């Protein structure tokens, strides 16, 4: 088992934001986390990284996260945030090297192993020649590649990405999802929260659909992104088209006023 999550509750400022929910990931997958704003997607992702307190049990490779130190959790889960900001004018190599922090002692220069991991990650993301370039000089898509390389250098089994496609143009969004698929073929499990239904339905192996702090559906895209569930969860009507053997879901209108 790569990941098993069984939460009984997550509260924030006295308000319950996650209700009892559970799911498991037993093989490397691209898992899309979908749901309206405020459904609890980010809270679930933050719980999985132990960034917020939770009631319940989260296990990675059968190890309970609550019994582990932050550094060993960081060797199991990497995090790719929505914003692609790096403070200070650091070059790309140094940005990717930041992913090695959980593997490094408090003092001292990076080891040969660290340098190898960084170079491998940059090569795998197609940014091997970007080392000397200042991160700020890159385009949005290039920045995304460097930051994914950073999570890759962390050498974790699981990568959590919180709305990483936000602010990218469609070409780069598709490219990013393709990179995530590549990560799955490398043996990683990628949990990605998305708002884009076509992107999720065309790329993800599995969808966790969230509504009001609960999992409304946990299934492959063709079963989770149905007319009925989309009406229930998002209040929208959809159209489905077949594209290269996959069902791509396109939102076509709001049905908030209809009797659901």
């Amino acid at each position: 088992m790569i990941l098993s999550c069984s939460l009984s509750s997550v509260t924030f400022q006295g308000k319950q934001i996650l209700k009892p929910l559970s799911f498991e990931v037993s093989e490397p997958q691209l898992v899309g986390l979908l749901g309206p704003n405020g459904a609890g997607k980010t809270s679930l992702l933050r719980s999985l990284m132990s960034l917020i307190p939770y009631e319940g049990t989260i296990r990675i490779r059968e190890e309970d996260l609550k019994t582990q130190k932050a550094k060993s959790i960081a060797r199991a889960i990497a995090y790719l945030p929505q914003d692609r900001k790096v403070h200070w004018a650091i070059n790309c190599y140094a940005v990717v090297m930041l992913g090695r922090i959980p593997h490094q002692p408090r003092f001292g220069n990076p080891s040969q192993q660290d340098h190898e991991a960084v170079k491998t990650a940059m090569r795998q993301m197609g940014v091997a020649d970007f080392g000397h370039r200042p991160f700020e000089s890159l385009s949005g898509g290039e920045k995304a590649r460097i930051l994914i390389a950073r999570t890759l250098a962390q050498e974790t089994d699981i990568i959590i990405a919180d709305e990483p496609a936000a602010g990218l143009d469609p070409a780069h969004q598709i490219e990013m999802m393709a990179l995530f698929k590549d990560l799955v073929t490398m043996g990683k499990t990628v949990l990605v929260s998305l708002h884009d239904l076509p992107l999720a339905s065309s790329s993800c192996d599995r969808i966790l659909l969230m509504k009001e702090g609960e999992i409304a559906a946990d299934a492959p895209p063709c079963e989770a992104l149905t007319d009925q569930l989309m009406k229930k969860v998002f209040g929208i009507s959809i159209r489905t088209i077949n594209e290269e053997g996959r069902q791509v879901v396109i939102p076509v209108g709001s049905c908030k006023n209809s009797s659901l």
Partner: protein
Amino acid sequence: MTDPSFEKRSLPLLFMLCILSVLLFILSLGWGQVWINPLLLFAGSEDPAVKGEYLILLEIRLPRAILALIIGAILGLSGAVLQGLLRNPLAEPGLLGVSASASLGAVIALYTGLASFSILALPFSALVGAAIAVFLLHLLAGSRADILVTILAGVALTTLAGALTTLILNLSKNPFAVLEIVFWMMGSFADRSLQHVWLSLPFILIGGLMLAFTGRALDALSLGHDVARSLGVNFRRVQLLSIFGTAIGVGAATAVAGAIGFVGLIVPHLLRPLVGSRPSQLLPVSAAGGAVFLLMADIGVRVILPGKDLKLGVITALIGTPFFLWLLIKVRRKEVL
């Protein structure tokens, strides 16, 4: 692919700055109203022909040079750490209200006469002032240390400490005490003894050690608060080390030398591009650079107006203010960060 890491570049820089600080230290020992061979320090006081010069070296110039070295180092280091913690190039201990509050603590000790009871009273009072400042800062800015709020809180603390200091000056009946307070606040290494060194050194070392532990975490913070935590960084611990390390180190520095501004701002700034902007690489070079800067400023004080007891704070502020304004303009043009 060639290795674009900066470790290789920052080590020679650190080495150069260390050599430079040693040379300036020796120059600081020799330079004064009369030139004295610094090697006399090793000659001892046996020879009556050089006894006077030996005593000047030991009692006056050595403490002065040591204080410039260690205080410059702690100011440079704490500036680099605070800039990394707050992810803001304008942060420095002085702007956070720590120095002003430490000064207020020292001024209270001078005003109440507490300072005359024990040589420990003044630095201890300054330390308490610095500690209160960081607690208030922490309280006002919150656990996530929002950059804008932290700086605004620091400005408020500086203003408050400044106003209270002025109030004490107003209330002071003794004109000599007023003069003593005013001169003390401008910062100086003149007339400091080895006792001042022994008083401040442990605090500066403890503060410096605490700050030195933050390097890796500050690197992680370049990716933001949440990513740093996901990389295994205990943010609260880093915050406590940074803030208390600064308070202890800068509080002790202010306690023996008065408020010396802008070192913590200028030094990390000048050195940042040379180490690839990585906070962890910036810490040691900023400490060495701070020492170089203050040793130079202290020699400058003696060169520009010899015998006039020009205050060190005046020199650093005269260099620092135009630099600060230039930096603001650069930030506005988004040329930095």
